[in-house]
């Protein structure tokens, strides 16, 4: 499974919504339940799913889902 598909599952899990289809341009504004708390939940869930760790600054600089995918690939050595 590629990063995007796997990330999509994490998104559906965290936001408890089976209809979510992530896109590269997607941001927190596109998902109603995406607030500061679910954001951290998301980061923690992604760390668990992909077996990697993100620093505060890395998470702070993310602008959209596309950048998140790139970060995950870089961390897991898929890039």
């Amino acid at each position, binding site marked *: 499974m590629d990063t995007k598909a796997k990330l999509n599952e994490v998104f559906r899990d965290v936001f408890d919504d089976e209809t979510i289809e992530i896109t590269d341009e997607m941001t927190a504004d596109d998902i109603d339940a995406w607030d500061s*708390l679910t954001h951290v939940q998301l980061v923690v869930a992604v760390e668990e799913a992909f077996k990697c760790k993100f620093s505060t600054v890395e998470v702070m600089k993310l602008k959209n889902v596309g950048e998140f995918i790139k970060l995950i690939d870089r961390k897991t050595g898929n890039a």
Partner: protein
Amino acid sequence: MIERLVMLNFSIGSIAFGVLLIVMPLLMNLKREWRQYIFFIVNIVVFTLTLKSVYAGIIAVFWIITPYLMAPFLVQESEKSISRFLKPLFYILMLVGFLYLMHYDWIIIFKKLPYFAALKFLGLSYLLFREVDYTMQYEYLREMKVRITIVDYINYVLNFYTIMAGPIMRYEEFVTDFYDSEKPALDGNAVMDQAHRIIFGYVKVYVISSFMSWFASYWFGRISEAGNLAKAVIIYVLFAVFNALFIYFNFVGYCDVVAGGAALCGMTLRENFNKPYMARSMTEFWNRHHITLSEWIRDYIYSPVIKKLISGPCKKNLFAGQCAALFITFLIAGIWHGTNLNYVVYGLLEGLGVVISSVRKSKLQKKYGKKGYKEYEKKLPVIIFEHAWTMLYVALSFSFVGYDVIGFIMERV
């Protein structure tokens, strides 16, 4: 033992600052290529002249240069790298050094160590924020090819406009803005706008906030004469409201003066206020008041704390984790504001305030649903209640800032 130096008085009301306010726009516009060097020299000269002793100078150099030199070694390349230990050690030492230099009077261990008040230097508490930002962001800054030189670093941390009380800029933000070649040159109108901003800033600080401060002191002095508890409470509220207004006008006026001054030199400072007393909850208040501080604590305290909590002890109860993280964050922010116990109470109250506002919002959302909650928020009595409650809560918590309320209560108990 401690040699007395020039000890320049430096505040926005000082002659030195007034002169710089007028001279700097002219100097900084002499030649584009010289800007950073002129600013560098002025920042160093101002900072040096304010030092209280040679020892303070030595400590200040150490305090400022160490993060610059250490930043490359704090980059976390692999799990095994030395930075894994170095990084936490660096920040712990920095924190201990800060607590010692600030001389927190309720941390008993510091009372047993020798201490000279003359060691404290200008802007110590704000330097900490900038240095943490620089070292934390270093890896990212290198990646993004953001300009990093010792001149820019010194200009960032010692920027004489912001050294006294912020706004807390980020390194990337400061440098990007400083070298922004596409920024239009100031025309006559823009200069007049900034001059107005500076003048009104001074009016806010020296006229409006002085009045408020006078009223606050007046009512504070009257509390003990109240006679009964109900009267004392009313007088205390009056004191607290005037004190909160004093803090607001003093800080907002200061920000106007320094932002206007910096703008005349072609620098854009971050806005620190967005009508804070229009807020309807403590959470919203902190998004509108001292914004650069709120954002800094969000990024460097709240985010790591909540991440630790919800991936560990609060895995089952995320909301509890969020509340705990908010409480810890605002407690620390409160303690940072001042060195005596009053600021601990202030921190506790701020923490409690944001937790209450989060719990209330979550309860109401559960009760009415997300859509129903939006409708509920539009009702007039709710609007009035939320505004009044927030203002009152802010005033009561701020009453511990600048006044020794604890001492006052202890004397009478």
